[in-house]
């Protein structure tokens, strides 16, 4: 068997060990590469900075634990940013698994900035129906959410005083790992009601939302753990995302090496043995 075939037939479990090391070593021994802030993340940061204190921001948690490493740091950074600017957060989720994650992020930030549930932030919980939920919220929030996620009537919560529909909401941010998520909030929130919509998405779905950014349908966007790390830099705090970036760098380097190395032999092999394939 030629070198090419032996290399190609390498047992995949050896590669598993290599990628594991590429992630574990930088976590134990951080290298500390510098992180650059990209424009879409800067725009989202500006969108929150430009809000007057007391404005209401919807943060819709449309993700689940399987994408937490990328989106949970965004959720924490956004909650801290909103509370640091005395904004009121109306939390909700188009995915049931997102509701406790949103609640945990808001509670953590509330402790840090001395905010209280029901006055500065609320969690309206989950509704099934994706795009229909968004358009029901646009029309009438108390009718769609008569109770918060834990069953307390919304009329008893001061934060919901005078809140009827999207007219009383200044900014919408969807933290989304797929459907339903950013697309539904843009299609209804921005498309029909002209609200400002921002997004925090997994790296898998980020490339597909660049048309929304360019068309002004999204005011800003964080993509993947890198987007979360950039937002943490803007918030002058190193949360869990920035900590992972060294491991991300090394792992990317390893995978690029795999692709180049394997393709080098592949192209060399093909030229010598054109009949092979």
């Amino acid at each position, binding site marked *: 068997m030629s070198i090419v075939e032996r290399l190609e*037939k390498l047992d*995949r479990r050896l590669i598993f060990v290599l990628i594991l090391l590429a992630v574990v070593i930088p976590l134990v021994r951080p290298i500390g590469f510098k992180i650059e802030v990209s424009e879409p993340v800067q725009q989202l940061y500006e969108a929150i900075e430009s809000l007057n204190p*007391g404005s209401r921001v919807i943060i819709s948690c449309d993700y689940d634990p399987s994408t937490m490493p990328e989106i949970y740091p965004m959720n924490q950074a956004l909650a801290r940013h909103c509370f640091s600017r005395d904004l009121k957060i109306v939390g909700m989720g188009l995915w049931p698994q997102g509701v406790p994650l949103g609640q945990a992020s808001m509670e953590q930030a509330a402790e840090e900035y001395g905010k209280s549930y029901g006055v500065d932030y609320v969690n309206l919980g989950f509704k099934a129906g994706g795009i229909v939920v968004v358009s029901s919220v646009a029309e009438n929030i108390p009718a769609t959410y008569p109770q918060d996620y834990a069953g307390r009537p919304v009329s008893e919560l001061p934060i919901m005083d*005078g809140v*009827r529909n999207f007219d009383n909401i200044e900014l919408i941010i969807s933290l989304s790992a797929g459907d339903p998520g950013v697309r539904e909030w843009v299609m209804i929130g921005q*498309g029909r009601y002209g609200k400002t919509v921002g997004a925090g998405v997994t790296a*898998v779905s980020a490339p597909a939302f660049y048309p929304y950014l360019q068309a002004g349908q999204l005011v800003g966007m964080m993509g993947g753990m890198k987007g979360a790390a950039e937002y943490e830099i803007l918030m002058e705090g190193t949360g869990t995302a920035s900590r992972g970036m060294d491991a991300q760098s090394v792992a990317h380097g390893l995978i690029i090496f795999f692709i180049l190395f394997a393709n080098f032999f592949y192209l060399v092999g093909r030229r010598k043995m054109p009949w092979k394939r």
Partner: protein
Amino acid sequence: MDGVGRSLVRYWRSALPLVIVLWSVSGAASGATTPDTVTPEPPSPPSNVAAEDRSNDAGGSVVISWTKSADDGGGKESVVEYLVLRSTSLAGEFQQIGSVRSGVAQFVDQNSIDGTPYFYMVRASDGVSLSLPEVSEAASSSAQWFHTGRTNILVAGALLSFLVLLFIRKAKRGEELYIRPIAGLEAVDEAVGRATEMGKPIMYVPGIMDMDDIQTIASMIILGRVARKAAEYETALLVPTSRSLVMSAAQETVKEAYLDAGRPDAFDADRIRYLTDDQFGYAAGVDGLMLREVPGAIFYMGAFYAESLILAETGHSTGAIQIAGTAMPSQLPFFVTACDYTLIGEELFAASAYLSKEPLLLGSLKGQDWGKAISIAILVGGVILVSFGMSKIVEWLTTR
């Protein structure tokens, strides 16, 4: 600001004339001295308060807008909020209907009765004293029968619907509708031929979604074509499925294909088997099948998620020719680099329309093609117009 605010306002309104008289007298009398006991000067009022019906809505709401008071974000910086009051007549009693924080210059009154004229008063407040009132003209809310801002979508929707329905009718009447040859389908035939030369079986993986996914339906049509070729060449055809409904549909399709090819006896139902519903369990099961049967050609047609990586990698290691087809944007990059040929997105549907000649598929494909032709025309024409400064077309396309 609700309970306390209302009583404060009522007190001020009744005592206002008296206070102004006292305040101006005391101010004049005391002259230049700056007595600390004088009441703080109320903020300057907002200006040109305007009220109008909210357009394109179901009625019941009036939009009130004004220019911010000089003491809001400037001057004494004393304005904390604006109070919005409403009355059905100028002389009548103004009721407060809401308030907005400083820095905001608009309020929407959402429970006005259509047709009744209202006067709106806006007063800046610094938490203690209120500015002089500014009152708007009369305005009343009404519901509109047509949303003028959405004519562009109406035109686009009607045009696309007309095209699709027109071509479906043409296809139903059997008219010849041209679809360009799909390169992927030639690759399918070539792969089946190559596998037969090597005397190896063919494996067809129909994706992990159920029969309600349009990609799985398209996959069944392409399976029919592969099965007919396999029957002609007498090559074994393996179809592992991840849904029981897909298994029965696949058995139906393959049996029919073998009949068409005149080889009903060669049809073997156990080669079309249901493995498991679980995503990674299915991938592991198909990998095992690949390593045991060593197929000459492998087809991945339908809806795939992250398991596409595991399948394509093992398939590549067996040295088989791999042809993929899916409309899942996140999986296309992996199939393009790991397989010999890939039907990209809509090509999967075009291939199934091309093969089945089924009026619904054929008609809508042609209708959508016309939609694309129109989009290209608007894009080319629009960019040229806009480059020369004529941006009227952009307004036509904008939805308000």
